[in-house]
């Protein structure tokens, strides 16, 4: 049921990303200041935006889980945050490359977005250690949801704090709001954001589908085992001790 719509979604993601890359290399003009390296902007910034929205979506799904008690929301929240953590590594790496190329340093402390992003990344790195050091599956889901909500609320707050701490002495070549971008650059940027968002959704759905499939497989295997044991017992063979592990989605 999770796999429904996965194929058109992935085709759309691939097409949009392909178009975006085409626009990046053949349509968008070279930046007068930074030259070719500025093109990484079309990868880095959309990736960062999508990652942050993924974190916040994880928080919203956490709220949904706590309100409904429906395990599938916990799974969605987990996959969203997990995926965002992976993408955040890519954001930090592309950001460092861009900083090195245009400012000469791998890391620039007076770029507020970069610094906020690092803090948020460090916080979310605790999500999995926290989650998997709780044994009780019910409590694990609940605590993970609480973490997702706290951290989701922290994301905008942290951005405000870090931005206030900057003296704005650094020239901001391209503001992410697109205030000073020419039209062709802006179009390319928007297509890139759309492509990245589609890619994120596709990966999220794929991961959910695979998680769900492995849970179902596990459940079926368990049932098969039980039935075989019952069959053996009925045939008079000495029955091995029956496993009492309940088939729950938590065992995945």
């Amino acid at each position, binding site marked *: 049921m999770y796999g429904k719509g996965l194929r058109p979604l992935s085709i759309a993601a691939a097409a949009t990303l392909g178009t975006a890359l085409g626009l990046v290399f053949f349509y968008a003009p070279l930046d007068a200041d930074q030259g070719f390296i500025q093109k990484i902007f079309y990868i880095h910034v959309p990736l960062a935006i999508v990652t942050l929205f993924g974190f916040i979506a994880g928080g919203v799904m956490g709220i949904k889980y706590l309100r409904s008690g429906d395990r599938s929301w916990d799974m969605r929240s987990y996959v969203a945050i997990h995926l965002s953590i992976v993408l955040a590594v890519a954001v930090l790496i592309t950001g460092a490359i861009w900083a090195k190329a245009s400012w000469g340093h791998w890391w620039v402390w007076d770029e507020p977005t970069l610094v906020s992003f690092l803090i948020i990344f460090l916080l979310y790195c605790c999500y999995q*250690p*926290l989650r998997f050091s709780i044994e009780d599956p019910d409590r694990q889901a609940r*605590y993970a949801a609480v973490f997702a909500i706290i951290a989701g609320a922290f994301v905008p707050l942290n951005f405000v704090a870090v931005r206030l701490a900057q003296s704005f002495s650094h020239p901001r070549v391209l503001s992410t709001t697109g205030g000073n971008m020419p039209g062709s650059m802006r179009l390319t940027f928007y297509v890139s954001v759309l492509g990245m968002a589609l890619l994120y959704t596709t990966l999220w759905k794929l991961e959910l589908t695979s998680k769900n499939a492995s849970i179902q497989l596990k459940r079926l295997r368990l049932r098969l085992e039980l039935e075989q044991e019952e069959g053996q017992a009925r045939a008079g063979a000495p029955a091995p001790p029956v496993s009492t592990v309940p088939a729950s989605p938590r065992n995945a």
Partner: protein
Amino acid sequence: MIGTAWTILRKDLQIELRTKESVPAMALFSVTVFVLFHFGLQRNELEGDLAAGVLWVTLILATVLAVNRLFVTEREQGGIDGLLLAPIDRTAVFVAKAGALFLYLVLLELVAVPAFGILLLGPDLFKPLPTLILLLVLADVGLAAVGALVSALAVETRARDLIVPLLLLPLLVPVAIAGAEATEPLFSGNQAAHELGKWVALLGLYDMVFLLVSIAVFDFLLED
């Protein structure tokens, strides 16, 4: 609810008075960290941004110690079952725990700030003291709210001692930013460029957001 919270808070304070577990450890820790900073930075006297940074980082690190212990007595001695069986509002537990942490922090600062003034601070401590107290109290509210929440979150995990600092420190970065930025002019005598209002507003916003979030989600942490 206030009555219940007050009862739990009194119990916590009584335990603290008898065992003397958290506050003395925090105070001792902060003084030790000042000594470490003296050698680490190779300075006899600090001022300006360096002084502000050392003070706030030390206070935030000392907070970790108290947050580690905040729910431990309940968990180890099984007192949490009693709390959960009692027909009380769960928010009262949060208010009591955050209140206890707030008081511990105030007590810590009563020791740590004068110690900092004597050991490391170059400029006079008394002149900027009223502003510093305002900043510390505002920061303590935020530290107490986030600390109580993280403590409740981490107490159920296997690796509690690891989870608390890893979770708490990134969440406290805005407090460190606001505190250090607002304190820096106080310790450098450079009052001209002081933007105190901005940082007080940021601390206030932080306190409000985390108090509201904590009260909203705390019920789910104690639900069994």
